[in-house]
């Protein structure tokens, strides 16, 4: 086979030198992609000119002239489109962050319940997971929306879940404590408590490595975090006044309120994602071999220590990567808010696109925001993953 390299390539055949061949293939591939992109861009520009649609992001400075139901920052229809986008972005982040926290708690509880030695608990958890996973999230959002908007009673006959917590077709209302200057001091006490707990934890770990003596740092830490603000609260004479929601006319006045749309979106996202997280948690715990637990018991660790020191750290390694993609899914699914009328980023961008006709810019902004959120979540989860990863010698 030594002489084949000397044979000149026949015309119409790819050149024999793999280096050159690769370069030629790549140039061909890129030119095809570029031609296609150029063709699409040319068509788009022609069409835009023909339909008299402006392009560019100049519209962001113009007056939005549409109202937004709920907003975390001050907003009025006289504000700009840019401000409206900010409102939408904050709403998306708010509902996603709450959803991630609640879904993690729900999913962990259900995932552990799936492995319970209690037959009834195990079966109930399984029924929940199987029922929720196999129904589209959008249908579930519509269901919760209909439950809260249509099936829930009028404010006069509102369901009272807990004293002061009422559900009606205007959403949830609940009492909130009225602001008091002491609350600032309590917040400061919480911060001090956390700092103290971290300090005690470090000190006790150092002492344990040095002398082997154990110190109940978890209890002391919890005592600091909860006890210090409580002390401030008691010392100031317990200035707690709750602002209770009251029925006035056809709706509630006072207290805190959550709209049915927001509640439906949050409940739907939490319940749906919780089922997937439950399966991830269950698989993660199952992935830790039984021998690990037996070895821990043989060393004399108590069941709680066994779980905390041996099983969970190993399970987390299996759990974290799929958990990341569930968090991303939840954030992306929050875009379905547009279907039930919660003003998230997509729904505000949709209104903007309908008003200005500038669809390309609107979609580009949504995509940029979601890509950024995805990258940030992935980055943090990767950092966390690296922190808990197996340290091999």
């Amino acid at each position, binding site marked *: 086979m030594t002489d084949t390299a000397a044979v000149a390539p026949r015309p119409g055949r790819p050149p024999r030198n793999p280096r050159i061949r690769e370069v030629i293939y790549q140039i061909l*591939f890129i030119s095809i992609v570029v031609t296609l992109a150029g063709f699409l861009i040319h068509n788009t520009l022609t069409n835009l000119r023909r339909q008299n649609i402006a392009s560019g992001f100049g519209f962001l400075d113009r007056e939005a002239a549409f109202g937004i139901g709920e907003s975390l920052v001050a907003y009025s229809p006289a504000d700009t489109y840019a401000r409206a986008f900010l409102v939408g972005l904050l709403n998306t982040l708010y509902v996603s962050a709450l959803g991630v926290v609640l879904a993690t708690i729900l999913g962990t509880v259900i995932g552990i319940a799936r492995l319970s030695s209690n037959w*009834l608990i195990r079966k109930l958890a399984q029924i929940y997971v199987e029922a929720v996973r196999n129904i589209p999230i959008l249908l579930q959002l519509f269901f919760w929306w209909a439950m809260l908007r249509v099936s829930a009673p009028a404010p006069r006959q509102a369901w009272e879940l807990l004293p002061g917590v009422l559900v009606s077709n205007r959403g949830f209302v609940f009492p909130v404590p009225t602001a008091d200057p002491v609350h600032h001091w309590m917040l400061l006490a919480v911060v001090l408590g956390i700092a103290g707990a971290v300090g005690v934890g470090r000190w006790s770990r150092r002492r344990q490595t040095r002398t082997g003596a154990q110190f109940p740092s978890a209890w002391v830490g919890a005592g600091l975090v909860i006890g210090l603000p409580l002390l401030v609260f008691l010392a100031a004479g317990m200035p707690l006044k709750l602002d209770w929601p009251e029925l006035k006319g056809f709706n509630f006045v006072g207290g805190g309120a959550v709209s049915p749309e927001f509640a439906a979106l949050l409940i739907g996202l939490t319940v749906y994602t919780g089922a997937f997280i439950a399966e991830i948690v269950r698989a993660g715990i199952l992935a830790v071999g039984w021998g690990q637990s037996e070895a821990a018991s043989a060393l004399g660790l108590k069941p709680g220590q066994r779980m905390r020191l041996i099983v969970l750290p190993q399970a987390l390694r299996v759990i974290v990567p799929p958990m990341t993609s569930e968090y991303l899914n939840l954030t992306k699914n929050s875009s379905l808010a547009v279907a039930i009328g919660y003003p998230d980023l*997509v729904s505000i961008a949709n209104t903007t696109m309908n008003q200005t006709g500038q669809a390309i810019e609107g979609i580009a902004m949504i995509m940029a925001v979601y890509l950024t959120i995805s990258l940030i979540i992935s980055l943090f989860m990767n950092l966390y993953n690296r922190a808990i990863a197996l340290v091999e010698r």
Partner: protein
Amino acid sequence: MADIDVTQELPLLVERPRPVTASPLAWLRVNLFNSIPNTILTLAALYLLAVTIPPVIRWALVDAIWHADSGRACHGAGACWAFIAEKGRFILFGRYPYQEHWRPLFVVVIFIAMILASCDRRLWGRRLALLWFAGLVAVGVLMWGGVLGMTYVENERWNGLPLTLILATVGTLFAFPLAILLALGRRSRLPAVRGICVGYIELIRGVPLITVLFMASVMLPLFLPTGITIDKLLRAQVAIILFAAAYLAEIVRGGLQAIPRGQYEAADSLGFGYWRRTRLIVLPQALAMVIPPLVNSFIGGFKNTSLVIIIGLFDLLGAANAALTDANWQGFYLEAYAFIAAIYWTFCFFMSRYSQMLEREFNKSRQR
């Protein structure tokens, strides 16, 4: 967390003998009341069931109204299943001409038959591909009509369950070849090819399906040369194909990564070129390995088709929402949603069971 000690359950996994339960009473003691925390949990769960189950049964069965002439006569304490009796056909087939409903019904039967046939591993291969081709041709002929004495039905009137099934299956079938190319491209040695494939996959996976659907419904018409129009259904279908391809590509890549290096080297030493090696050695093994996750991905795609209602198509969910707007039958949201939830659930549950079964079998054959 101390209440539910998961480690208590783990011994069962290493096939320790389960405690022999002689009597129902003993079973109860072992499974429900074996410790104080478990007893508390059992009682709490029983209380929860006692509070929630009876009202649901009363709503759904005892107080339910099964026959009514109009929506007004149907508002009571319980569910109005008369709404489903009245609107069921509309929810399933939408605005398809009423006399021709046997055609979408037949299409649904064809789809179910093809999905069932695909579950039979003996048929996997060329025969199944032929079956799907013939099935899709039959679906097209039945839905469009215009031949064999069937009236022509434009695809704006393809609604309900057939639309959901078409979007999901056609989406997956067309996304699959694209996904294979993307996965191969992502593993390519050529930086330009790899870069573009990675960019595409990560871009699509980073954004919600809604944005891809918006893009298809608003921007696709702008992309095309002046004079060429593309209807709504096709736009949604293109969006679903482009979206599914990115996710399927990552699954296929998982299979490609699991192929041992020796397989590539063996193919090289036989003198195979890239395409021959890929087609004859690499892909058959890689694809066989990823069938269970592919089934899972299909389930996800099936559920995701419901998003097309946001761009104005009437799939199963869209038809249910449309049925709810009838002025004579207003306010039966829960009934309509329960009805279609049951349909979605049946499809997804059995497919997920099937994929779990496949996974078990695959694992069995791998751990020799």
